[in-house]
């Protein structure tokens, strides 16, 4: 086996293959930087070009691309708080605050080094686990997967930081949103409002971009500044410091890489939450993390990035061993395997061991190349942030719109982006943590699925399966430990009578928002009342739980505690904070209104004149009015940016654009391949 591994190394180092791996890496890095684009787009675009290659070169090319998308997705996450792919959403929590403190270079240093080490860990995991993982994975039935997902969801408590009730409520909202679509057992359409779009559920990409990217860009536009670039820190020195950070936190990196590769290897766990689970783990296990995470702690970046890259190696395991792709990108890769006549399964360990080890070497090599290139250009990339916000915000926002549209290439994607953008921004303003909502969304759907399969298949017997019991016990311990700790400390302290006074000033934004969530949950429960039990069960349960959390939150916000509790307020709220130090509340409101008015303009105008033309108008208008740029500058920005997106999305990616009114009016426009944008 060892000589096979070495000869596979030689296969990858063949100059022609090496060139293709490098090419794949470059394309992968480029795709990772653009929000919404990722491995799926790249693989589906390049798959046809591999038809004529020899199979090993083709796979090395594609895997090389896929392995590094999660390396460069850090760049927009750190600089703008906009995740490049869904997998780097957790990176923004600490990466972006670091950039705001002028530590972008250090954040890059830490994340690229964590990425490459995580990626190498994933490759090693792939090499070692392929022979042994098959029987292990076969012991994970639906009940076990259910237990894993419940465990993942229990991290919501940790990820809520000081705002535990809000976090729990946000998670229930996430689960509720996840129930959108056709329920498999009853074929009842839940919250689809008669649209075809919602039948398959809300797609993850526009939801995540809306929740995290739109609010960050909003705050950038409101504050009218990008992150500060401190000359001293945007340097090799800063990067080096970041690398040292990763090495200092070596074991954290190893633990998070292990989380990434193991969870990546288990088919049926949402790959989109792996970074959050690693982040939650770091938060729970690292010293002092409660106080510093979410405020620019480099350990948060390391946790998220190492797990993110390590999962790619892991995800290959289940694809190779079972032909069951763990992620959408892996589904494409599986297609590539089949096209090249390689059938995943036990053969990959015997007759096709060369393929398996080629993949291992490719993942390792691609990670080294990818991080190397990122290091090389980190300074130039960091200086993007020097561009004036009036130019930068509309450009990034425009690509976010098109990127979100890649979710399912339907008009609904843009609406989802906008709706969750507004929700995300509001949550950020009233200090409701957003990560629990995302976690609830991804895991909620899976939990419902596995719960029904488990009951249908095993009745209640599955509850006594050993792995299920163990994981549930660990989950319970994780939840109850902080509660018990608090109880103990309360007992130790002198008993104080709990006196609370009615807070006459409870009527703030937060209260109104919480009240709105309360109404939302009640409406959901009422709307679900007529459905068959199978369709209504989860909405009822999470709706009721959510109402309890929201009710408690409302009650506590109406009361003032007699003694302020410093530990609560000092705790991070586990989400980014907006800082408009020099702006009055009315300024913030006015600018926010204008920003979201522009966003809604894009949504509406896209239905009239098509998405790309609407973005052109938006780029021009936003740069002129919000950015206060001069006409020539605004025109140049709008023309150049639109031309870039036109070439990339219309001609290279051949995006089928959503139907617009203009196209209905003038069908001739649709008949011309150059103007087929409507």
């Amino acid at each position: 086996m060892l000589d096979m591994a070495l000869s596979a190394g030689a296969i990858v180092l063949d100059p022609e293959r090496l060139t293709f791996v490098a090419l794949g890496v470059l394309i992968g890095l480029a795709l990772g930087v653009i929000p919404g684009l990722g491995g799926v787009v790249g693989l589906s675009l390049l798959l046809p070009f591999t038809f004529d290659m020899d199979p090993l070169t083709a796979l090395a090319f594609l895997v090389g691309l896929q392995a590094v998308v999660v390396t460069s997705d850090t760049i927009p996450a750190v600089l703008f708080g906009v995740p490049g792919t869904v997998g780097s959403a957790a990176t923004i929590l600490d990466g972006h605050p670091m950039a705001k403190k002028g530590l972008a270079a250090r954040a890059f240093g830490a994340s690229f080094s964590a990425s490459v080490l995580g990626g190498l860990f994933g490759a090693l995991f792939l090499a070692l686990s392929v022979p042994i993982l098959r029987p292990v994975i076969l012991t994970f039935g639906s009940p076990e997967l259910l237990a894993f997902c419940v465990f993942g969801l229990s991290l919501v408590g940790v990820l809520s930081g000081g705002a535990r009730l809000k976090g729990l409520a946000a998670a229930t909202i996430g689960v509720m949103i996840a129930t959108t679509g056709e329920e498999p057992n009853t074929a009842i359409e839940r919250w689809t409002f008669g649209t075809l779009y919602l039948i398959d559920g809300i797609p993850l990409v526009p939801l995540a971009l809306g929740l995290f990217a739109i609010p960050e860009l909003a705050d950038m536009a409101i504050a009218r500044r990008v992150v500060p670039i401190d000359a001293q820190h945007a340097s090799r020195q800063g990067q080096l410091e970041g690398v040292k950070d990763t090495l200092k936190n070596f074991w954290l990196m190893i633990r998070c890489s292990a989380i990434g590769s193991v969870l990546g290897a288990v088919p049926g766990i949402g790959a989109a939450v792996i970074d959050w689970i690693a982040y939650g783990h770091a938060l729970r296990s690292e010293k002092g993390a409660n106080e510093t995470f979410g405020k620019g702690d480099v350990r948060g970046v390391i946790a998220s990035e190492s797990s993110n890259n390590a999962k790619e190696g892991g995800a290959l395991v289940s694809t190779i061993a079972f032909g069951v792709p763990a992620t959408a990108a892996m589904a494409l890769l599986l297609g590539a395997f089949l096209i090249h006549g390689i059938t995943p399964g036990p053969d990959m360990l015997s007759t096709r061991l060369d393929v398996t080890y080629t993949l291992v070497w490719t993942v390792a090599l691609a990670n080294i190349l990818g991080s190397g290139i990122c290091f090389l250009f980190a300074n130039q990339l960091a200086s993007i942030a020097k561009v004036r916000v009036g130019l930068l915000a509309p450009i990034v926002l425009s690509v976010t719109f098109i990127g979100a549209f890649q979710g399912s290439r339907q008009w609904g994607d843009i609406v989802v982006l906008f709706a969750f953008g507004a929700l995300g921004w509001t949550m950020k303003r009233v200090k409701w943590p957003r990560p629990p909502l995302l976690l609830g969304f991804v895991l909620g759907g899976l939990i419902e699925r596995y719960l029904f399969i488990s009951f249908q298949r095993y009745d209640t017997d599955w509850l006594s399966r050993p792995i299920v019991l163990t994981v549930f016990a660990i989950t319970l311990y994780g939840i109850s430990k902080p509660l018990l700790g608090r109880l103990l400390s309360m007992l130790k302290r002198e008993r104080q009578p709990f006196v609370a006074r009615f807070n006459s000033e409870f009527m703030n934004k937060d209260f109104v928002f919480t009240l709105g969530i309360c109404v939302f949950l009640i409406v959901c429960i009422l709307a679900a009342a007529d459905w068959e039990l199978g369709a209504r069960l989860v909405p009822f349960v999470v709706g009721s739980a959510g109402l309890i959390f929201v009710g408690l939150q409302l009650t506590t916000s109406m009361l003032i505690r007699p003694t302020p509790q410093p530990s609560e307020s000092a705790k991070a709220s586990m989400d980014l904070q907006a800082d408009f130090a020099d702006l009055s509340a009315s300024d913030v409101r006015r600018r926010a209104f204008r920003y979201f008015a522009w966003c809604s303009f894009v949504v509406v105008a896209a239905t009239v004149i098509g998405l790309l033309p609407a973005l052109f108008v938006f780029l021009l208008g936003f740069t002129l009015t919000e950015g206060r740029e001069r006409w020539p500058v605004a025109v140049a920005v709008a023309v150049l940016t639109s031309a870039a997106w036109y070439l990339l999305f219309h001609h290279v990616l051949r995006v089928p654009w959503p139907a617009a009114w203009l196209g209905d009016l003038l069908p001739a426009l649709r008949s011309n391949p150059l103007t087929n944008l409507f």
Partner: protein
Amino acid sequence: MPKLIERVLLFLMCAHGVVVAQPAAEFYAGRTVTILVGSGAGGTTDISARSIGQHLGRHIPGNPTVVVVNMPGGGSVTMSNHLYRSAPKDGTTLGYSLPGIVTSQLLEPRRARYDGREINWIGSAIKYTGIISVLSTAPATTLDEAKETEIFIGTTGRGSPAHQFPAIVQALLNLKFQLIAGYQSSNDVVLAMERGEVHGQSSSLQYWAISRPDWLADGRISHLLYVGPPDPLGTPGVPYLGDLVTEPEDRELVDFIEIGSRLGWPLFAPPGVPQARVEALREAFARLMEDPEFEADFESTVKARLNPTNGADLTAFVERSLNTPASTLDAAKTILGID
């Protein structure tokens, strides 16, 4: 300004008119034909579309470039709606859908906003043999045993053909299937079979040939019954559902289930495409089906032998299928529990 716009519009319309009058070869020369695939990347639908896309261009007069773009959602209904409403109607954009596309129009006219009678059907390269297969270690491995002994069949959900076929079979033949719905994909059901969670699933012979050729070869799975065209290698000895029912209304129901498998994966153009171009595309497709290079490539990537239907036959078949009697549709809906 309005004058200018008027002129531009006039120009575009004239340009359009000129385009319409061109012969197909002149029109397609130097253009790009986009095939929208109504599924995500990676499965049979996608792979077969890409194989067709790779070879079709050289058979179309003018040799246009052909590209394949995925547009998943709603079991190809999203793509078909898009093609029907907003894709160019000039023969540069074609659709390639899952076999369920006509059935969707019959069962869910509210969602499916296209009319199969108006679509320009170009042809289909393969049909599929729908088959219910169980592990050979399952408690029941024949239809007779399945009438006595309960077995678990995994499906993706009540709305999917993989659920509908066993559900209707169960009703017609009084079988003791326990349908476990909610798996994410056929691959997930196979994994569940491997770990003993379910005993079998409904899929197609190609599916097994692609994903588990070893199971087919070493007899690790047994087939209970099939619908659709018989497969000379895969189906000998396996009962055909059509032979097992006698009542005329049950026969109608079998015909209804078979629509998808006999339609196969169709390639089509939206309504309104100039007839000459539709004919050119149909002829190109027919020539493609005779092309040995394509055939070899298709069989090695899709793992299925060509079983083509030409445009005219496909049009007639769709017409016939769309005339399924309302009583049959009602019976199917009752069994499937959808309204």
